[in-house]
């Protein structure tokens, strides 16, 4: 179990960012880099100059729009309260430039394919190496003319391949597009046997059945959270285990762990589910023969 508070976590500007524009980051929770279930959860402030071309990832992510607007073109706009699930292999965007600043909570995590998730530290090292042989412009890595290799690459792909030393093979997409959810339009349903506790199940996705849900606790009500995922306090305050919770207090629970929230005032707690590591596929990197076919010309 990990517990972190949004108001106690330092803000930094990420030098490893491969997209265009400035992003202020707070990393609250993170996983085991050696595990295919690795993850990173944080709060992100995107400045209005942020831009990202249409792209995809070899990991999954949830994004929660806290303030401002993120425009994903044909995939829709995220307004405050909207939650997006971006499955691995699914294209989305382009994103931005947006009007004003946008503040989101985001978790990126290894998806069903078992390809895992590259850490910030690995990305920092890889990007520093790429900065010596090219430039990142609006989410695209442009290799210097005198350097052998592909001229233009998606910035994330370039960093990932530099970090991992092999071509990035995207998992087949299980969905046609990201899933944007509007929790305010779901109905609260009472949780049987739990006074003062209501739930909105927002959906579950992929063959790992990754869940997303939110609970509302009346003063005095309790929630015993269980199941691998990130539990983020959207509003309210109360007692969490031996300490306190308040807005943006966030908890990571591994499979089999539990955490108890007891509300002092009306509180909402959001689950951004993570797949059980045992359910992830065993990823086999491509064979040497396949790698040769994929070498940039």
């Amino acid at each position, binding site marked *: 179990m990990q517990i972190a508070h949004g108001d106690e976590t330092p803000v930094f500007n990420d030098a490893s960012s491969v997209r265009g524009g400035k992003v202020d980051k707070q990393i609250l929770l993170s996983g085991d880099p050696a595990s295919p279930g690795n993850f990173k959860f944080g709060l992100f402030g995107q400045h209005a100059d942020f831009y990202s071309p249409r792209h995809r990832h070899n990991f999954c992510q949830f994004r929660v729009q806290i303030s401002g607007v993120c425009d994903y073109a044909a995939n829709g706009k995220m307004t405050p309260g909207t939650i997006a699930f971006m499955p691995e292999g699914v294209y989305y965007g382009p994103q931005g430039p947006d009007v004003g600043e946008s503040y989101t909570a985001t978790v990126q995590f290894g998806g069903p394919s078992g390809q895992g998730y590259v850490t910030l530290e690995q990305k920092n090292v890889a990007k520093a190496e790429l900065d010596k042989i090219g430039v990142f412009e609006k989410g695209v890595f442009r290799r210097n003319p005198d350097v052998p290799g592909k001229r233009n690459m998606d910035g994330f792909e370039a960093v990932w391949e530099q970090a991992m030393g092999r071509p990035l093979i995207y998992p087949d997409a299980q969905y*046609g597009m990201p899933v944007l959810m509007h929790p305010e339009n*779901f109905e609260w349903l009472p949780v049987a046997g739990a006074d003062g506790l209501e739930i909105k199940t*927002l959906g579950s996705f992929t063959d790992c059945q990754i869940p997303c849900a939110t609970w509302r606790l009346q003063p005095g009500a309790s929630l015993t959270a269980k199941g691998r995922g990130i539990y983020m306090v959207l509003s309210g305050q109360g007692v969490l285990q031996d300490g306190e919770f308040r807005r943006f207090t966030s908890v990571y629970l591994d499979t089999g762990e539990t955490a108890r929230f007891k509300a002092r005032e009306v509180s909402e707690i959001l689950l951004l589910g993570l797949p059980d590591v045992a359910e992830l596929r065993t990823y086999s990197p491509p064979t040497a023969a396949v790698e040769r076919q994929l070498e940039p010309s």
Partner: protein
Amino acid sequence: MSAKIQTFRFEEAIGRAVKSTRGRGVDGAGSPGLNVVQFPIDTGLPDINLRFGFDQIGDGFFTPRHRHNFDQFRYVVSGAMNLAKGLDLHEGECVHVPEGTYYGPLNQKGPVSLLVIQFPGPNGAYRISDTEKSAAMDALKAAGGFFEDGVYKLPKPDGHSLNRDSYEAVWEQHNGRPITYSKPRYETPIVMRPQAFRWTPDPARPGVEIKRLGTFNEHGTSVALWRVAPGTLIPSEILAAPELRCVVRGEALYDGKVIDAKGVFYIPEGLRTDPIECPNGAEFLVFTLPMYARVAWEAAKARRVLAA
């Protein structure tokens, strides 16, 4: 009224009594085909008019961008269905179009055949029956209007026409009040690509593997594919939520009846099934509808009355 376990062979599906209210040239000559057959499923709940059937849509079929006040899923049996510009649903793929979510325009290229389920969603809005739709369309035509390109057009004395989305016009004609839509829970339809999902064994049903494609809304409406190994006997069971199981490949034997491709089971909650035998193997498309469990539906109705 309580529902029974129902099984239908494809031959027991019945033709639709009325054309779609949408689709280019519904009234005109050369209207692209939309042939629908549907199973006479009785949910046992009078408010729930569930349509499950087999649609064949012809080349050139068009509907404008629109939304529904009910939920639906579509699964492509053959061909490819256009969902919007640059977005097609291919053979073996499935889409969930939740109530209140806009989609389209649909501009069909080539023929496509689909399994389609439409049913009142969490909002509980009444889904009009074909008979009711037919009567409402007749009344609207008798009023001097006509249907074209998914729009009901009522000519005015000044030479212009009063235009309404055709489904809305028909729904309002039948119900005598303005149609309302729930606010969208999801921004877009959810397109599922089952070929990228993995089969996982069902611990409760030896010989059955499942692809769980997605679970949606606060009630947990879900869709899955089942692959049943040859020689499997799906044991007798009591479901907590109603399920609609459609055979998409192979065949199943139930109570002496052979249910083969495009045949369907409707199994209400709380009733004990007989074993389902699949001597040569089968694949099912399975919809689970927790909000149609009688207790859940009655509770939801009570909440809606309170909210109103």
